């Protein structure tokens, strides 16, 4: 019994596909899906993470509705050649550091992020250590 919010999400952002307790979306439609959620009470961006599945990166976003105590999960997959996805840091300031960390460790470029530099590693570091194919260059 998928949640009501997912049905609404599917009507508004046409590219969302519901499976079980999370929604698969196309990367470019991420901002308006997020805005849609924000207007319907899911205004707390909980977590952004990414995992490297060799030919693609799967990004997972979770949102919370603090009033009705409900969670929503969005997942988007981004190809390995150009790992681009619109950034949420202008809607949620909380996304700023998490996106920079993913850029730093996973090498995913968040378009529209105003200060996308390495957060955890020093700037001269080449390569993205969290990737599966990262050979220890040093």
């Amino acid at each position: 019994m998928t949640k009501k919010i997912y049905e609404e999400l599917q009507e508004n952002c046409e590219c969302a596909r519901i499976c079980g307790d999370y929604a698969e979306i196309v990367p470019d439609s991420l901002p308006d899906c997020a805005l849609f959620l924000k207007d319907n009470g899911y205004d707390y961006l909980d977590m952004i993470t990414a995992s490297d599945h060799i030919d693609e990166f799967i990004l997972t976003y979770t949102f919370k509705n603090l009033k009705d105590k409900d969670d929503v999960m969005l997942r988007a997959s981004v190809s390995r050649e150009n790992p681009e996805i619109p950034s949420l840091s202008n809607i949620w300031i909380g996304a700023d550091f998490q996106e920079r960390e993913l850029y730093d460790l996973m090498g995913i470029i968040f378009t529209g992020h105003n200060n996308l530099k390495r957060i955890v590693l020093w700037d001269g570091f080449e390569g993205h250590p969290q990737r599966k194919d990262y050979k220890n260059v040093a």
Partner: protein
Amino acid sequence: MSLRTEEFVVNVGPQHPSTHGVFRMRFTLDGEIVKDVEPIFGYLHRGVEKLMEMRTYKQGIPMTDRLDYVSAINNNWPYVLAVEELAGISVPQRAEFMRVIMSEMQRISSHILAVGSQMNDMGSFYTVFMYMFREREKLTDLMEMVTGQRMMYNYMRFGGVSMDFPAEFVPQLKKFIKVFPKYMAEYEDMLYDNEIFLARTKGVGCFKPEDAINISTSGPVLRSTGVDYDLRRDKPYSVYDKFEFDVPVGKNGDVYDRVWVRMEEMKQSVRIIEQALDMMPGGNRFCSKVPVALHIPEGFTYKEIESPRGMLGCYLESDGSDKPYRCHFRAPAFINLTALKTMLVGQKLADAIIIFGSVDLSMGEVDR
């Protein structure tokens, strides 16, 4: 002739008495007023998430201790919950209660450290810090009695906990719980009415609820602004739905409210421990039988618990082998730090240090 003034940059750098760990902030100061702050991370980055991909599930448990080393037991919980859900392991009732008791004790000792070092940042030269550490020492003894370790407990296992409570533990814990509120009253005398404490904390580092939600802060930082959200009550995991406890919520999100929320949470933890001790079933089933090198079918899950610093989550992906495919921890302190800029800019240097201390971060979790 106009006096030419110039802003200068101060590195409140990795070696600084009140950065609670290896953390550097580059302040641009105009005299005493902070114009801009730029946090610099990475001094304690050990790549825990990459290391966990090279270890089996069980070998990953001691790694999670090293995340937020101030409240080590709470780190095990989301990881263990995630693995239990993916592998379909059931946890006996007694183990659930043991987990609750140990993590609530850990919450008290973590809040003690937070409030104690907060007072020390304000200059009361370790006095309140020392009194609180006297209590923390008793708690650490109790923890050592159960787990054998004082800091890196490595206590939780998939399907329960690693060891049963020894016989002397429960009476000692009951005695501690009876004595602790008296000591708490002592701290409150020293804190709440002290004019200088009020002068330094009331209205300092105000933080509006909308900002708190927008910056997705969590834990005492979020609750001090008036947003009433606590995972233990709103999205109960384990056996938290069996206890009744109330969630302290601040009014105007300043340093005073954060200290008040932490002190109240300590009292609520004592209440939870009392109820847990009564409700704990007897017997000696503290863990269900699970092989050491567990093989988990393909899948992913995201589990969250309420750690003393906020919502500590573990996103786990498994691919059927005995090693996690991807394990990401949502570190509450790391995300609370994004609130640093909105809180600090415009404050004085002395206030900036206290506001930064009230966010209560532990660098192991921030840098991972």
